[in-house]
């Protein structure tokens, strides 16, 4: 579904991605693992069109998208749940969800979509009319995920969903990602939390200073693997 | 002073010594030309007034040039922008004096700006004819080099006061005024003398420059219920006040300064004849635009500036230009600044062109025009009627 080849990107004169390449097959959960500053978030933002690619290719669903603006990439069915969540703080939970679906779905579909998200995240249903700014960190992560799902994306990009969240919420997120994947959702996940990644991913790439340095089926790895740890450090 | 500037100064002196002939030593005077510096608000909001005023003077000078100039010399005008701003005006005058080395300067329509530049003329001893600025302090106390043929603010105040005294039944006055040097000058002599004339000011209301609303001012005047209202405001605000006065049912008469003598223009701005039907304005022109008295001067202006809209402002600068020309002619072929000043001082019953007065200077007199008249609109509101100095009922 997604094939990234020799992708390069950066901010100004600083090059963050130095020819990164990986694939996300349809129906799978792929995780990019790496430490701080490895280039994980930049990879996600470049794929989603928020950071411009300086070289290389991104092929999504049979089309090259590395030169397209973010709203067109989104329209093709690629939704990013960013690390900062990027919610609309003064809007209610329902309004945030609505906006997630506005660009791709008709207004009648949106109501059904919201019901679907509420079924998946009952906590959000309780907070339906609260402003996003008043939600807890975990609830905000759920809302960001729900908002991305509103567009019924072919590919969901999750950028460090567990950042700053307690163990109970992380467990809840693991359950949700698994459930989504069981429903056929293709997911690209970026994580520092190895336990979370290994719990949900089919395949794992390890990224370090803007390059892929190792890859493996998730089942063959464990979080105690010393070599694996050293790459993350 | 830097060594470079001293060096340049010495070089200039040497060159001047080598090249200059005594007859041409006077700044701004050559065998064929006399340089006249001109400044005024050529940019900024007030440039609306600046251009027509300066153009009136330019029209006179061009006319003289077309007739062969003065004593064989053509008049060459050098322009600077003062933007109606004191600092910029002072800089403009400095430039005219030191860079352009003009013989005399004729310019200045904004009182505060001209006043700020006054020192330059006094120090540099350059003859200055005020273009249209009305502030008394520019020419009084007098300085040898500063002349004006514009009716000063105090004179305007006197013309209005003399007129008010002749209106039957008017004892209690309201004053609506701008808060600036211009309005202060107009009111200075007025305030000093109205009590002696048996009048009383029962309301003094301020209207800001460029105000677009005069509701509170109109209501304050209405509440005071005066016998007459004195308007010491610029044309824009005068129109706004009269419009709102009509809106809130005020009664005239209104007596305005010569700043709004273009009553027809005031009528348009205030939104119709109804708003200005009881307005009397002080005026320093011989007659309104289109009147036979103004024909000669109108023709001169239109010939030089066929695309300009003709307005009262078009004639403000002419009396000064005519006086400058008369004095230059009188000063003779061997033109010097001192001779020019002497020639100005000797002007007696000089031609003020479109202005109402006759120009009168003397060794101790620098305000050449002190007479004014009063105008109002005809009953149908379409023409200006010259009333002379005292009140009359318009049929």
């Amino acid at each position: 579904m997604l094939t990234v080849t020799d992708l390069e990107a950066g901010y100004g004169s600083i090059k963050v991605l130095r020819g990164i390449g990986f694939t996300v097959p349809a129906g799978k959960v792929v995780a990019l693992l790496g430490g701080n500053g490895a280039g994980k978030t930049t990879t996600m933002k470049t794929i989603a069109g928020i950071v411009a690619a300086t070289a290389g290719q991104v092929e999504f669903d049979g089309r090259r998208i590395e030169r397209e603006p973010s709203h067109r990439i989104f329209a093709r069915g690629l939704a990013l749940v960013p690390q900062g969540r990027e919610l609309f703080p003064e809007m209610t939970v329902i309004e945030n969800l609505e906006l997630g679906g506005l660009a791709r779905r008709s207004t009648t579909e949106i109501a059904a979509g919201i019901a679907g998200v509420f079924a998946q995240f009952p906590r959000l249903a309780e907070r339906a009319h609260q402003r996003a700014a008043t939600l807890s960190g975990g609830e905000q992560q759920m809302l960001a995920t729900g908002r991305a799902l509103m567009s019924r994306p072919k590919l969901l990009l999750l950028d460090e969903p567990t950042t700053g969240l307690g163990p109970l919420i992380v467990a809840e997120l693991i359950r949700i990602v698994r459930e989504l994947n069981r429903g056929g959702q293709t997911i690209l996940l970026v994580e520092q939390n190895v336990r979370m990644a290994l719990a949900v991913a089919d395949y794992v790439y390890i990224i370090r200073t803007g390059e892929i340095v190792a890859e493996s089926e998730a089942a063959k790895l464990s979080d105690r693997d010393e070599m694996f740890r050293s790459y993350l450090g | 002073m830097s060594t470079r500037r001293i060096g340049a100064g010495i070089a200039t002196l040497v060159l001047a010594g080598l090249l200059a002939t005594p007859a041409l030593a006077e700044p701004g005077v050559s065998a064929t030309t006399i340089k006249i510096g001109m400044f005024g608000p050529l940019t900024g909001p007030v440039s609306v007034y600046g251009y027509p005023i300066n153009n009136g003077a330019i029209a006179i000078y061009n006319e003289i040039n077309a007739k062969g100039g003065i004593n064989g010399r053509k008049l060459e005008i050098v322009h600077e922008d003062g933007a109606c701003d004191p600092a910029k005006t002072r800089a403009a005058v400095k430039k005219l004096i030191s860079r352009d080395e003009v013989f005399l300067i004729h310019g200045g329509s904004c009182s505060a700006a001209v006043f700020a530049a006054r020192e330059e003329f006094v120090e540099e001893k350059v003859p200055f004819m005020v273009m249209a600025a009305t502030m008394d302090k520019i020419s009084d106390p007098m300085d040898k080099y500063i002349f004006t043929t514009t009716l000063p603010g105090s004179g305007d105040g006197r013309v209005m006061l003399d007129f008010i005294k002749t209106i039957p039944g008017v004892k209690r006055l309201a004053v609506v005024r701008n808060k600036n040097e211009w309005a202060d000058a107009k009111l200075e002599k007025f305030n000093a003398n109205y009590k002696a004339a048996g009048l009383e000011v029962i309301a003094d209301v301020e209207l800001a420059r460029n105000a677009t609303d005069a509701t509170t001012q109109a209501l304050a005047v209405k509440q005071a219920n005066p016998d007459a209202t004195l308007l010491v405001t610029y044309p824009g605000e005068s129109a706004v006040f009269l419009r709102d006065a009509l809106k809130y049912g005020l009664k005239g008469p209104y007596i305005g300064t010569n700043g709004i003598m273009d009553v027809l223009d005031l009528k348009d701005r205030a939104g119709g004849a109804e708003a200005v039907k009881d307005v009397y304005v002080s005026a320093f022109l011989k007659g309104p635009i289109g009147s036979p008295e103004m024909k000669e001067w109108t023709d001169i202006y239109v010939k030089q500036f066929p695309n300009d809209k003709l307005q009262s402002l078009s004639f403000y600068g002419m009396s000064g230009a005519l006086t400058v020309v008369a004095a230059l002619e009188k000063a003779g072929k061997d033109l010097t600044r001192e001779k020019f000043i002497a020639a100005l001082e000797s002007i007696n019953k000089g031609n003020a062109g479109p202005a109402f007065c006759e120009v009168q200077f003397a060794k101790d007199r620098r305000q050449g025009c002190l007479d004014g008249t009063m105008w109002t609109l005809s009953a149908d509101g379409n023409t200006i009627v010259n009333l002379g100095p005292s009140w009359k009922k318009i049929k």
Partner: protein
Amino acid sequence: MDIATLLVAGLANGSLYSLMALGLVLVYKTQDVINFAHGEVLATGAFLGYTLYKVVGLPYPIAFVVAILLGGLLGGLIERIAFRPIAHHPHITLAMVTVGLSFALKGALRIPYGRDIYVFPPLMGHTPIMVGATAISPQSIVTIVVALMLAGALFAFFAYTTMGKQMRATQQNITGAALVGINTGRIFSFTWALSCLIGAAAGVLAGPLSLLYPDMGTNYLLKGFAAAVLGGLESVPGAMVAGLIVGVIEMLFGGLISTAFQEVSAFFIIIIVLMFRPHGLFGQKPVHRV
């Protein structure tokens, strides 16, 4: 002095300040920039209205609508041509460009209209309607009603339309907006169009109250800016209410205390308010954005 008369006149002026403040707030909310050319937008609207009504001879309501739509179009074009290419530059750069734009628009207006002063005739005549001792100018009523209708339409637009919601979303979080597929460039254009449309409407309404000349917008920009600050700079209802407050304060101050301080009274009150409420009457303390 009749307080009701003062109030009506204050509300009429205030509703123009409100419209100016709304235009400023819209652009500020979206791009964090004060549009210093907004006074010239008002002047442009006034001249457009004048030309369509007096010169072309369209009926007033049609002239009004066409003038404000043209004002909106101008706003969209300004954004697309002048601001889109530098949208990612620091805010100060954008602010400086608006200053330049202010001079450019003034210059452009001087080409056809020169240095003359034009008079926009009032829609309903100058004769006031008397309600008891209260004199109400018909033009004041027109101004207040049209301004309130515009403000109402704007609230409805933001609350109920897709575009309105997308604009609010972009104001609150531009990255988030891009992530949910909103074409943020289009939102910028539309924001400027809407801001200039409202500014042009203020201009057409101000025409009969003020006189028309290219610099006519300066005073309205100052008062509108004061209202925007008083309202909290980011608040649409705040701008609306604060504009009315500024208009009424001016009138009451001038009418009841002194005409000498009328022009500065609003600024004086605003300084006092901001001493106690630094984020304005309706502004919120800057929240940490989620």
